[in-house]
């Protein structure tokens, strides 16, 4: 192997090993450590200068205590459950809203499509934080929504600091991730197939249900994963739009780390979150590979 090829591979490889894989090892290790009032706030710490006995001693002090703690305090498993539920419901709503948009884009006149595509992508380039922030002004008790309702002579509603606000936030910020993959499957779809279905006796509506919808399934699945996976670990939306009852694991982890400074428990929370997400991530990869066939 020549040196150029070696360095071409080695540089990004080493970078990812050091800054992606090794950190996970550290998270795993700390999740097995104990909380301590010290700097860094956990024990034991590995002292490689101590040689083999030090390492053995270090290993013997690691335990699953933090994981046991996670199962004992119902805050954690409730937070996991609630994160998955909120993410799932929000993903479903995003699908219901995103599909008609993607469909209408794919069916729009050719010359319009680049513009429509740009309009969907543009919010994605805009700061996520700002897009979430925009809803605070709309949903707050004296916000634009309640002003409008009052103008129409309707009762004001409480939305901010509830789970509904979290749903709105997720749907709003992740909508492009749903629309784009669905649009790309619909846009690639051979229009002959719809004509063939009609030729064989389908009304246009039947042709949609029997041909268009089943064929856009890979895009729908990809879109759902792209919304669901990050939504489970979401921190910004529940902390800005959610209320005290909104339990989401990203927020719990953040508070465990920054407010309680319990690094070992925070690490254990992260490890379990990752384990939960491994299944959808693997399924997502499978779906993508199948699509590329």
């Amino acid at each position, binding site marked *: 192997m020549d040196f150029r090829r070696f360095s071409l591979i080695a540089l990004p490889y080493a970078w990812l090993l050091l800054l992606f894989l090794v950190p996970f090892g550290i998270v795993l290790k700390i999740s097995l450590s104990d909380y301590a009032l010290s700097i860094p706030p956990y024990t034991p710490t590995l002292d490689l200068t101590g040689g083999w006995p030090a390492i053995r001693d270090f290993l013997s002090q690691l335990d699953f205590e933090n994981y046991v703690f996670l199962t004992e305090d119902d805050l954690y498993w409730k937070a996991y459950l609630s994160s998955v539920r909120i993410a799932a419901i929000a993903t479903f709503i995003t699908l219901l809203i995103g599909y008609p948009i993607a469909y209408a884009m794919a069916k729009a006149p050719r010359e319009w499509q680049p513009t429509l595509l740009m309009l969907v992508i543009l919010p994605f380039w805009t700061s996520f934080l700002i897009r979430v922030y925009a809803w605070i002004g709309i949903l707050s008790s004296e916000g634009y929504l309640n002003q409008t309702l009052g103008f129409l002579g309707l009762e004001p509603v409480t939305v901010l600091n509830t789970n509904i606000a979290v749903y709105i936030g997720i749907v709003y910020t992740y909508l492009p991730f749903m629309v784009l993959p669905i649009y790309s499957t619909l846009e690639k779809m051979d229009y002959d197939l719809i004509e063939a279905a009609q*030729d064989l006796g389908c009304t246009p509506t039947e042709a949609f249900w029997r041909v268009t919808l089943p064929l856009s399934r890979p895009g729908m699945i990809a879109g759902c994963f792209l919304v669901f996976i990050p939504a489970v670990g979401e921190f910004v939306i529940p902390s800005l739009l959610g209320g005290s009852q909104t339990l989401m694991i990203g927020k719990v982890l953040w508070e465990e780390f920054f407010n309680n400074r319990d690094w070992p428990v925070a690490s254990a929370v992260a490890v379990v979150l990752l384990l939960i997400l491994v299944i959808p991530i693997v399924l997502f990869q499978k779906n993508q590979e199948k699509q590329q066939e």
Partner: protein
Amino acid sequence: MNQPSSPQTPARPAGPGPATAFHPWDDPDAVPLIRFRGVTKRFGDFTAIDAVDLDIYPREFFALLGPSGCGKTTLMRMLAGFESPSVGAITLEGRDIVHVPPHKRAVNMMFQSYALFPHLTVEQNIAFGLKRSGMEKDAIEARVAEMLRMVQLQKFAARKPHQISGGQRQRVALARALAKAPKLLLLDEPLGALDKKLRQQTQFELVDIQERTGTTFVIVTHDQEEAMTVASRIAVMNEGKIAQVDTPGRIYESPASVYVADFVGDVNLIEGNARPVGQGMAEIRWREGVPAIRGQAAEPLVEGERATLAIRPEKIAISRERPEGRNNVVQGRVHDIAYLGNISTYHVRLPDGVIVQAQVANQRRIARRDFTWEDEVWLSWSDTAGVVLMR
């Protein structure tokens, strides 16, 4: 189904033949299945179909032939119901079908892309149309089995379209379109995606299936050999108009215009001033100082009009000595030889630079070829070999 492929055998006797010959278009009492009357289709400023009148008879294998953009696909899509004419009427068995949506027409189509549903198996694809028609489950199964047998795909019934070969997909598309036993089957460039050998074989299979099912077929193609092989009649189209409708034999032997002569097969075109010489013959004066050449007049013509003599390369004889007793004789020099194995085409340059092609069957081995580059040769053909065309 696996007929030995011999492209030389015509699918049907062309022109007058045995008493059983099929030519309802010559029968004044025959009722057409499809009738186009004054059909025009405009897309914005563009006229895709221009005042077309056309009759297609039951059990015909009818070909729409023309280059891309000539309107043949639009004409077919009107039959399927995906386009409606801007002006004019289309009737199927005497009933106006212009406003009947595609899913209510007894017309099925085999798409150029095959348009097989990728999420359904071969079997489910074939059953798709039957299910829509509210057929009994048992009857559907029986019909699907029959169709699979017809296209010899029983073994692949459970496969998805991407798990079978291109030729098999083509057969699934055919079976799916025929499953509902339509009154009319439309085939849009059905063999375009197949390689040449498979295409030739499949052409005969198509003819065979058409004859067995007795369905009227309308095929759209840009491949003149394909049209000649399968069709009972061909409509040659050009820029939204029908240039000529006739049997393959007459399209080739008696083209109605320069366009048709040039589009179907190879042809030499010699332009000059025409003069009728009686008995449907005409003479063309094409160069000073050489004798005029003759051919059959396609239509009555007036002396002095510009006209073109169209003569097929295979009807021109090539010789070293001046042939005796022929009116149409020209002299030239062999400019180029295209050796195709079974035949050779000689490109002969006349003194004024015009190139005339003559085709000769290679009865001898190539080393014993009679003529070679730069040889002085004589070209000749009979009076009835060429056609004098006004358009």
